[in-house]
């Protein structure tokens, strides 16, 4: 236990040092990223650490969380909605119904030629009708002021509301994925979920009617109760308060905003931990570990492996979805192009593994540590290179190396990652 406290203190120290030597704003903004990542890592840990599900679709669930923010809190576009909203909804319903019918037919009909023909026929017919209803509606929506709108818009509701909705969207997607792909094991499940995530992001990128695709949505509102710094800077009350305490109002406004985010994210993080820890240290958690250790035996001992896998897959994904929504509402924009697997899937995995899979606090530690590392190497890497080259004689080699300094970023990250893993080959806080 004391070792764990020490580890947390160590990571805390890193943030303090960043605050002292760089700036507190930087330290806090890294902390925010770390908190968000910790929540995502917890979601993954629930799936991997508890149940051994190798989910590499984290990016997709994060993106769905982001989409929720757009749908819930973006400015409404009534013209866009009027132009084709109903057609789009009808199209989607038709699509869903035809898939459902096909699935039912597949389940109910006896194996054989008839089924093999009928199911594709239903799907193809469904697809045609879907396209026939859907396409014109989309064209109409996208034609509405494409440079600044071209989508159906959001509901204009508070951003905070989008967080649970993000969780729900992710959960719904996880349900669909789980129903189809959870029969797969290890790396096969990994690639399938990776693929689904790519598909989700492809949809976000290319369906302009939904969230403007690659044209991005910006200026999403902030979650309650976080104010805008510029508003604070204008508020006489705030300026008063800041000067009374001897702060510079501009600097204080930024710190205050970040601290509010820290508070919000911290609360969510604690809630997630509370739920996970309670679950883990209960017969439910024991059952999950049994399933992880040996599915065949767990099933023979009466545990419904499929159902449990689905349950945990949905819960974990929902947590990631919530974090995704939190991230988008903090950044204030949805940019589908930013979702890439390295940052949103594998980095989170690194956090889980470095923290120690199966250990919730480990995931938090991993999230904070790797989050810090990921962002700090941006300056650390080039600085290292600066150190290295400062001793060298002027010349083309030195020039070349200085040019390449930005690439020390990932190199440094890699080296530190390897060092951390070397000293804690089972993670910093291994599952006991």
């Amino acid at each position: 236990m004391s070792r764990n406290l020490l580890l947390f203190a160590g990571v805390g120290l890193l943030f303090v040092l960043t605050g002292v030597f760089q700036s507190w704003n930087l330290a806090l903004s890294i902390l925010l990223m770390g908190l968000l990542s910790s929540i995502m890592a917890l979601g993954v840990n629930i799936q991997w650490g508890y149940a051994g599900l190798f989910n590499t679709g984290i990016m997709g669930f994060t993106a769905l969380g982001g989409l929720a923010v757009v749908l819930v809190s973006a400015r409404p576009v009534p013209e866009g909605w009027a132009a084709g909203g109903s057609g789009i909804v009808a199209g989607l319903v038709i699509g869903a119904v035809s898939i459902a019918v096909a699935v039912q037919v597949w389940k109910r009909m006896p194996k054989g030629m008839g089924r093999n023909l009928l199911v594709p026929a239903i799907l193809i017919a469904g697809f045609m009708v879907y396209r026939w209803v859907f396409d014109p509606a989309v064209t109409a929506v996208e034609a509405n002021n494409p440079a600044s709108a071209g989508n159906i818009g959001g509901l204009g509701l508070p951003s905070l509301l989008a967080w649970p909705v993000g969780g729900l969207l992710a959960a719904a997607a996880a349900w669909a994925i789980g129903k189809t792909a959870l029969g797969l094991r290890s790396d096969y499940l990994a690639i399938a979920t990776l693929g689904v995530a790519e598909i989700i992001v492809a949809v976000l990128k290319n369906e302009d009617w939904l969230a403007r695709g690659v044209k991005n949505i910006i200026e999403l509102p902030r979650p309650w109760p976080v104010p805008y710094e510029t508003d604070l800077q204008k508020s006489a009350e705030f300026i008063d308060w800041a000067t009374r305490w001897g702060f510079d109002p501009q600097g204080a406004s930024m710190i205050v905003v970040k601290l509010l985010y820290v508070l919000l994210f911290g609360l969510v993080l604690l809630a997630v931990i509370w739920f996970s820890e309670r679950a883990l240290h209960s017969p439910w958690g024991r059952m999950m570990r049994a399933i992880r250790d040996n599915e065949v035996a767990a099933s023979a001992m009466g545990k419904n492996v499929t159902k449990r896998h689905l349950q945990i897959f949905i819960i974990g994904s929902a947590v990631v979805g919530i974090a995704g929504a939190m991230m988008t509402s903090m950044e204030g924009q949805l940019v589908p192009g930013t979702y890439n697997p390295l940052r949103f899937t594998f980095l989170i995995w690194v956090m889980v593994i470095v923290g120690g899979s199966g250990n919730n606090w480990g995931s938090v530690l991993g999230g904070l540590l790797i989050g810090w590392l990921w962002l700090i190497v941006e300056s650390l890497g080039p600085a290292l290179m600066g150190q290295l080259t400062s001793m060298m004689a002027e010349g083309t080699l030195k020039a070349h190396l200085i040019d390449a300094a930005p690439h020390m970023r990932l190199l440094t990250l890699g080296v530190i990652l390897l060092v951390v893993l070397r000293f804690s080959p089972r993670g910093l806080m291994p599952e006991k």
Partner: protein
Amino acid sequence: MDFLNALVVFLNFVFVPGLAYGAQLALGALGVTLIYGILRFSNFAHGDTMAFGTMVTIYATWGLQAAGITFGILPTALLGLPVGIAVTALLVLATDWLVYKFYRKKKAVPTILVMVSLGVMFVMNGIVRLFIGVEEQNFADGERFFISAGDFKAMTGLTEGLAIKTTQGVTVVTALIVVAWLFWFLQKTRTGKSMRAFSDNEDLALLSGINPDRVVQVTWIIAAALATIAGVLYGLDKSFKPFTYFQLLLPIFAAAIVGGLGNPIGAIAGGFVIAFSEVTVTYAWKKVLTYVLPESIMPDSLVQLMTTDYKFAVSFSILILVLLFMPTGLFKGKSV
């Protein structure tokens, strides 16, 4: 004649590029699948190993070119390949000694190794960029085409052309040779069998007198060779840019997995599945149809099932579909 034209259109835009791309993926997937099969983890550093190998080969090629040595109609880089392979082999052996060995001794679980390989990936990533930089490097020389579209038209008198690039030919042939060799090596030779034994049950391999260090070394050397070959052929056909090689990782893994991890034949099959599903499902049939359908019933749309926006999504959907029916890939892969 029209039918021939339709066929040529299809061959030129779908079949030949798909075949070449498939072979490129397959070569990459072979390396991934080998590491997975023997050392039992997904090696994320493979893309960057490919980049490293290609980089060394590029330097070697430049050297050869400077010395005035070329390879006839074939690219000089093929002559530089041995150098690339040798240096890359040294690098991965050093990496193994410095990094992976420790975890092997600790009997770390595969996911730890995957994360370690991510770390190695970042480092290699940096090394390649420190040396050759981030820009694109063109190092192809020799004859660009076996047959170019224009030549084909002139030769056959068809309206449509068929182009086959030298590099496409070389890639496909190499891929087939390499997979056959690897299959034979693993299934039939003593060393190959000892490698499989090691991957199956390390302790028991030890009890059979198999030298684990040797197995690991041989595996890395072959993997380095595969990575370099794959990287160089890809670079010759398209171009070399470190970032693209990193991006290649995803389709390469997809290929290895859909084929069945650990199985060389699967890697080849997987490569083609991924490549062809990218190219065919989003293919617009309009041009083909203009030749085979009479004017009157010719549709004016592109006759495209899905737009190319979704080509990646489509190839992944197909991958998932395959896995749903064959949960460990086309060729019964392993899973750790």
